[in-house]
């Protein structure tokens, strides 16, 4: 009996000893449903690294957000929706105050639950475009730009600012045959009807991502004036190499912001010159925040980035940094507003709903030149920062346009319509009536 007692006592002390450091500092759990494995890992890894490194830098430099450690944790999904549910449940049970679902498929599963679980969903630059409507999607946020914003900006840019010039032209939409790739279709269809161009959606199945010869054969036959790409993961590299192989003019080939991975274009190098990608983020290795990350995280070996490949300068890596900056700012905003240190889910929701990235804030955070100003409010969960067109110059992406802005008049009615459709299909769906904006 005494021996048993001793064992129990010993076990408790050991357990307490192990658990003690965790309580030494206040922390908030900010998980990320990452995918460093699977067919989309190439695009996932630099983004996840950027996210992790920004959080690590803030914890290192400032000791967290006002002394509260930002406990960034990854739960690996491999872009698999089944793992996504598992990770969502797991992180929720561990006390997460936000979920970052990453895949549109996982977002679809998590979105309806967000109301019930009161869990903020942060999907920067992805997810449903209709999530912009903050009154309907109270818990979901997709700053700083939605896919429909992106589609509108791409069209404006390729039309040279005058959409009427697209009349009679043919635009192919090379897209992943997945909820993500289908996102821009409703908006592009309405544009096609309005401005008289032909939209040719060309789906790429998940199984054909690496071998798109059939799709590019179709492109060669149809000779579209532009190919707009909504690609992800292994699909981007496949498309770029096929375009080079079929000699499709690169200056007529434009991708959304997830189709601008440096590594994919490095595969073709000089031959990819002229390929453009829309991006709401811009690289700036001289920004104070990047220097701090380099000094405190990368140079001390705490980062997982691939230094040989120059990942530090990649668009995606620095975009990951921005995504974490949104989240960290939301935490700080909630702390200030509720005069508390450890924020909970509802307080973080307020923080995300009141993000204010104006010029002064961007300067203060040291994100100079990396993002355009935007702010969210209770009716607008996207913020609409606008985006730049980046062009591949053979070795890296360079800015190729001024800041573009989406055509709100065309998008907002569609957002309202789709948001209502979603709410109606998911009755009872709570609408934020308090929001008067």
């Amino acid at each position, binding site marked *: 009996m005494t021996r048993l007692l001793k064992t129990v006592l010993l076990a408790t002390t050991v357990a307490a000893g*192990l658990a003690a450091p965790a309580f030494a500092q206040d922390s908030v759990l900010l998980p990320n449903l*990452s995918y*460093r*494995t699977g067919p989309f890992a190439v695009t996932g890894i630099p983004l996840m690294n950027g996210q992790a490194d920004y959080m690590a830098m803030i914890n290192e430099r400032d000791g967290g957000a006002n002394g509260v450690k930002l406990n960034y*944790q*990854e*739960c*690996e999904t*491999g872009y698999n*929706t*089944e793992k996504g*549910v*598992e990770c969502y*449940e*797991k992180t*929720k*049970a561990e006390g997460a105050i936000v979920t970052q679902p990453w895949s*549109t*498929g996982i977002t*679809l*599963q998590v979105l*309806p*639950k967000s*109301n*019930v679980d009161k869990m903020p969903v942060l999907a920067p630059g992805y997810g*449903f475009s209709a999530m912009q409507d903050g009154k309907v999607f109270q818990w979901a946020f997709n700053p700083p730009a939605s896919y429909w914003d992106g589609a509108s900006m791409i069209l404006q840019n390729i039309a040279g600012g005058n959409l009427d010039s697209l009349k009679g032209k043919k635009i192919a939409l090379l897209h992943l*045959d*997945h*909820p993500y790739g*289908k*996102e821009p*279709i*409703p908006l592009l269809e309405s544009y096609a009807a309005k401005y008289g161009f032909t939209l040719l959606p060309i789906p790429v*199945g*998940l199984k054909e991502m690496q071998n798109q010869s059939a799709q590019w054969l179709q492109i060669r036959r149809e000779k579209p004036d532009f190919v707009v790409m909504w690609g992800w993961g292994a699909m981007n590299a496949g498309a770029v190499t096929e375009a080079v192989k079929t000699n499709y003019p690169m200056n007529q080939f434009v991708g959304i912001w997830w189709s601008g991975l440096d590594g994919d274009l490095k595969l073709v190098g000089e031959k990819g010159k002229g390929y453009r990608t829309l991006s709401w983020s811009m690289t700036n290795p001289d920004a104070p925040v990047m220097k701090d990350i380099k000094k405190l995280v990368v140079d001390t070996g705490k980062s*997982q980035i691939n230094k040989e490949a120059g990942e530090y300068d990649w668009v995606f890596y620095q975009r990951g940094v921005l995504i974490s900056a949104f989240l960290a700012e939301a935490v700080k905003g909630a702390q200030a507003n509720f005069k508390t240190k450890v924020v909970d889910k509802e307080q973080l929701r307020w923080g995300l709903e009141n993000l204010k990235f104006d010029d002064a804030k961007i300067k203060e955070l040291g994100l100079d030149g990396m993002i355009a100003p935007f702010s969210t409010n209770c009716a607008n969960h996207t913020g609409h920062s606008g985006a730049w067109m980046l062009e591949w110059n053979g070795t890296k992406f360079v800015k190729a346009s001024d800041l573009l802005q989406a055509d709100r008049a065309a998008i907002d009615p569609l957002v309202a319509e*789709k948001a209502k459709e979603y709410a109606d*299909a*998911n*009755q*009872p769906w709570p609408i934020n009536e308090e929001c008067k904006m």
Partner: protein
Amino acid sequence: MLYRTAGQFKTSYAADHALFPVRQDAWLLGFILLVAYVLFPLTASEFTLNALLVPVLIYALAALGLNILTGYAGQLSLGTGAFMGVGAYACFKLMTIFPGMNIAVAIALSGFFSAAVGVAFGLPSLRIKGFYLAIATLAAQFFLVWLFEKWAWLYNYNSSGAIQVPNVSMFGLTVAGPGAAPVVKYYFVLLTVTLVTWFAINITRGRIGRTWKAVRDMDIAAELVGINPMKAKLSAFAVSSYIVGISGALFVFLWRGAAEPNLFDIPLSFRVLFIAIIGGLGSILGNYLGAILIVALPVIIGSLPAALGLPLQSATIEHLNVMIVGATIILFLIVEPHGLARFWAIIREKLIMWPFPH
């Protein structure tokens, strides 16, 4: 000792043919049911319910459906995922066309759609066998997933091409959709699975089940003793696809909440086939054991390092997980090629003899 059968005398044919000729089996089952119906709902966390128990039950049900076809009737099928999809889409359409429909009725009806599709794709089984039939069912797999993608009516012309589960209530209680409590979903799934299992046990023991087994073991001999192979094979396809269809409807409505077409692609078929094979072909119990190994084990391994306080990267855990689960599968198949159910049967036999082996 525990499994002593001495003193359990059978005095009638009915007693001899009872479901549990050995009393301890009935006690064991009673205990498992008690745990499943009382203990788990009382103690399990939301994570355990949503990520462990419900998926294990649903996968076990799908494997049970496949096992009837492959294990009992000997017809190899690689189209399980697609048949699950038929059940899911049928249930979705039923629920959206008739919004007031009771979800239990909708799920029961959706099984008939997949049964019909299953019979249609089972027709080649009358002429071809083995691997050739597997290829024919593979065609069903590719065709149906393609259909789920291209036939926009199936997903109500949703722009993202996915189906989403609305809040569904039954007798005033929300049973499906985001608003449903995990315990309610669990009970719904558990009840369905219990009912179907009871049905499956009885059908496989009875006349129909015996005709399936006869056809499986030697179809020419079966035909000679007067069994109609067409009837036997097609009824196996129908019953199997019905169960698979129900499991597909549960899969989306009671667990995932949303589904896109590629969810029902070939990896899902293989997963269910693995569960059936590792669990044991031609057994009911095996499906549950297989589902625990294939579905629950990775989840448990995945949460171990965090529970033990090991500072491992999430991606590393995932790689380790794949390796461990893969190794376990190979190990089990080497140790007992007839599956986990056979493994249990051996243990049980030894227990009955113990402590005096031959």
